[in-house]
């Protein structure tokens, strides 16, 4: 076949490619400060996994390089140089056996370490704190049962940002109200699915105060991409402050303020689904939300302390502007607690995001909120619908929401 010319530099090109890819990965190839980097553990559990990675990846890398080198050698050395057709040998069993046993031994070593880590990561005896984590389309709810030794005297319900004390073994009890979601804060641990009808346990521990990003990682429908979360680790003192703030009684805005008018709008428009603990109607009767009558999952975020969280709507949108955000995210560990606990001040509020959300939520985050398409759910929304608020209402609501902290 004259048309077929041997590709001489095949070996070199392949090895260049391999080396190039490997080099890119190892050297300058990676993003810096990627918030969800799996190789930047910030807690014991993630560290255990990372230690395993530090064993397995080099082994895989070395095997890869050796095999590629062998392949490269073969491609060059045994190319057709006009030699005779070689003897038709069918193999050497001893070579086969060695080549079976060597990988088996390597994998046995890996297997032993893997087994130990699996068991360590399943340990629950050392739990110091429990938080119930519930996923639904497309946000996370965190429910802190009363636990006196953590200073939590009455249950706390919050969403989006999971607040935990530093250096404490927290056990998350995960479930879901609709489809399967997966809770994943890469810096603190691997992921664990939140499955409706089941409770799955996941350990969390953070070495230092800080904010750790995460993302729902089990495909959960339309807005799966928009279901994020953050874990916030606070020093023990700061955590106690956070708990105290969460548990403080509700104070209604002063009469005659814009915020007070906003409270009225909230009661009319929002309180059907969103609970604000302690809010009362004009007659002094406590208002209890009934999200189950409006939303398929039966839950909507509790907004009692909305402005203590600096993201909203499934941790999708910043509640604070760029400058204040950077201030918190980039804070040094020792300054972090104070900055986070400051919450969303009027200066920091990202009014654009919040207003846009109030104006038309489904336009910002795809949700099943078209009333025409809710036949299968008997009219129940999946996600927040467009409430058709006037700009006037929105002004009032923003003023009111700013008081929730």
């Amino acid at each position, binding site marked *: 076949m004259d*048309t*077929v010319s*041997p*590709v001489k530099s*095949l070996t070199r090109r392949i090895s260049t490619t391999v080396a190039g*890819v490997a080099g890119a990965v190892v050297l*300058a190839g990676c*993003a*810096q400060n*990627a*918030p*969800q*980097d*799996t190789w930047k553990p910030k807690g014991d559990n993630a560290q*255990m*996994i990372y230690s395993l*990675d530090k064993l*397995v*990846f080099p082994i*895989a890398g070395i*095997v890869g390089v050796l095999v590629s080198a062998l*392949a490269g050698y073969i*491609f060059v050395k*045994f190319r*057709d140089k006009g030699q005779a057709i*070689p*003897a*038709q*040998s069918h*193999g050497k069993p001893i*070579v*086969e056996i060695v*080549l*079976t046993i060597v*990988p088996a031994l390597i*994998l046995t070593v*890996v297997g032993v370490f*893997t087994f130990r880590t699996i068991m360590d*990561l399943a340990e629950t005896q050392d739990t110091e704190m429990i938080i119930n984590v519930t996923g639904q389309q497309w946000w996370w709810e965190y429910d802190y049962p009363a636990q006196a030794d953590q200073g939590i005297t009455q249950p706390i319900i919050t969403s989006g940002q999971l607040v935990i004390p530093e250096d404490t073994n927290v056990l998350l009890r995960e479930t879901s109200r609709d489809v399967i979601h*997966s809770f*994943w804060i890469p810096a603190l*641990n*691997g*992921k*664990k*699915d939140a499955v409706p*009808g089941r409770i799955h346990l996941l350990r969390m521990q953070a070495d230092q105060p800080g904010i750790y*990003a995460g993302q729902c*990682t089990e*495909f959960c*429908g*339309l807005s*799966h*991409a*928009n279901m*994020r979360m953050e874990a916030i680790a606070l020093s023990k003192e700061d955590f106690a402050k956070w708990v105290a703030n969460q548990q403080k009684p509700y104070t209604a805005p002063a009469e005659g303020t814009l915020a007070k008018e906003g409270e009225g709008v909230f009661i009319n428009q929002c309180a059907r689904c969103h609970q604000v603990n302690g809010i009362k109607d004009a007659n002094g009767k406590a208002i209890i939300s009934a999200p189950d009558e409006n939303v398929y999952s039966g839950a909507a975020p509790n907004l009692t302390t909305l402005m203590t969280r600096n993201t909203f709507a499934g941790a999708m949108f910043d509640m604070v502007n760029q400058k204040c955000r950077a201030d918190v995210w980039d804070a040094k560990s020792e300054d972090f607690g104070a900055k986070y606990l400051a919450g969303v001040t009027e200066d920091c509020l990202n009014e654009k995001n919040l207003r846009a959300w109030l104006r038309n939520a489904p336009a910002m985050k*795809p949700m*099943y909120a078209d009333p025409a398409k809710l036949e*299968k*759910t008997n009219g129940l929304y999946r996600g927040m619908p467009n409430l058709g608020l006037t700009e006037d209402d929105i002004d009032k609501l923003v003023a009111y929401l700013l008081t929730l902290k």
Partner: protein
Amino acid sequence: MAIIERPGTSTTPVVVTPQQTLGAVKRPVATKGWREWLFTVDHKKIGIMYGVVAMVFFIIGGVEALLIRLQLAMPDGQILSADKYNQMFTMHATTMVFLFAMPMAGAFANYFLPLQIGARDVAFPRINALSLWLLIIGGLVLNASWFLGGAADGGWFMYAPNSGPIFSPSHGVDFWVIGLQIAGVASLLGSINLIVTVLNMRAPGMSLMKMPVFTWMILVVQFLLVFSLPVITVALVLLMLQRSYGATFFDVSQGADPLLWQHLFWIFGHPEVYVLILPAFGIISEVLPTFARKPLFGYPFVVFSGASIGLVGFGVWAHHMFASGLGPVSVAVFSVATMAIAIPTGVKIFNWLLTMWGGKIWYTTAMNFAIGLVVLFTIGGLSGVTHSVAPSDTQQTDTYYIVAHFHYVLFGGMVFGLFSGFYYWWPKVFGKMLNEKLGAWNFWFMVIGMNMTFGPMHILGLQGQPRRMYVWTEARAGEGFFNLGFWNLVASIGSFILAVGVLFFLINVVITARSKQQAPLDPWDARTLEWLTTSPPKAHNFDRIPVVHHLDEFFHRKYEEDTATHTMKKVAEGEDLVRAEGDAADAHIHLPSPSYWPILLSIGVGLLGLGVVYGIPMMVIGFAITLFSAYGWVLEPSVAEEIDFEPSDNDGNTKEIAPLG
């Protein structure tokens, strides 16, 4: 076609009892035009049609992939809506797995398996045609959903309860469920057919351990399918009953366990992974020895490792579920079992390398693709080992690291294997050589494109970018020049380079089809029986059924060992051997005849399935057609009598008295 006679021999055909087909329907007899293809039962024509269909779906799935990469090239992509994106990645995977990879392997298996074992057709030629048409109907149903209210949007894994009637209210999932059931029946029938063919119809002397490795790997794959397809069928039936008839299987409010679906799906889904890769392993186990001019190193080890990959493949399904909330003991067991499967896979890699060791390597495009598979699959295999480590996998699963892994094994592995097969067997199937220059362009664009697309995904995944997100945000992309945005862009550019590579192949096909230059009968100095006949092979494959004495029979008919130097010397030319076969042709070659029933039955089944969406009347019509075709089928002898056809005009040479089917 019915009967091929040699002049001068007795012309009494073997008596076939029945006289007529059902009712007034006469057999199809066309030898030209579309009818020849629609009603054929010839495994070679069916194989070619499988190939064409699979290629069409490869292009469709590829366009879907390009749209996905366009959307993700930049942060907050605007090309696709969330809804469309979810449909896109669901259908990309479904199309590539069920409508490209499996049918393309089916194309090779159909065409070459009978040829490699020295048979004249498969065991059940009409069932073979039925498999093809059912697959086409299944594929059409699946893709029709694009135009009938939106495609399935739950991911190819279609996890419950997100796939239920409430969470996925469009009909997309219904079409998906129906289409896959039909395609599943097609695969099941195909796999039974091929197993029987291999076990029962080998040429005299071809013991199991003298079978070509491609045939072996196809055999293993068919066993995997026979025992895994029913499990996915159960899952699909449960989902269909829930979505369309009010069953409660995945309704958590009734106490259902969503993990049931995951178990059923992955009990099928993991063997399916080997269903996808083993045919490619088979192809390059033919290509590497041919172009290294040496037999496969450790043939029995390669065969047994293939079989054990298949067997162990049934016991590792839960490694797709390390984050699903299994207990630590199950996780540990499946983790270790998954590591164990790396061993036979490693054995294969080493055997391929050692096949080339001491060889005389001839770098053709087919060989380049085969080598590409060895290298790229090794990378994918090693990243696979990193997530057999269950704790690491909980960081990696559902991120782009996994996407990188399975595209290295499936694109770098499977697709490269299939392309190797295209270049290797093209002259056999069409009698013309694919252009090697364009082949080089094809190969290098695919290699570079593939590494640019999927290489960066390792970084994206390990640095925390999850899969199945219709947008990614700069807020989570990190800093520096090589941030996740950079790598997303590289991957998107790579995907278009990859597409250009595939385009070179399509151009090559067109140019080759227009060229008048015929390929030599034995262009690669090949080793196995399919080369011991003309190119393309005659309808009856072999003029005389070969008697087999060796593994690599064809090679050993051409070469003998020089006992002094232990090198091989050529004692016969392949072309002469082929001609000699023609001179000693058999008398009375009876081939199965074309039939209307397979395609009609498939249409009936298709309508029956669509009845699930469109109501009882359509179901009744579909059922009636199915039943009518089934009776027509049963009453029709597979080999027609001569009276069904035009008489012969016996004019000398081996003459076909009836049209080819």
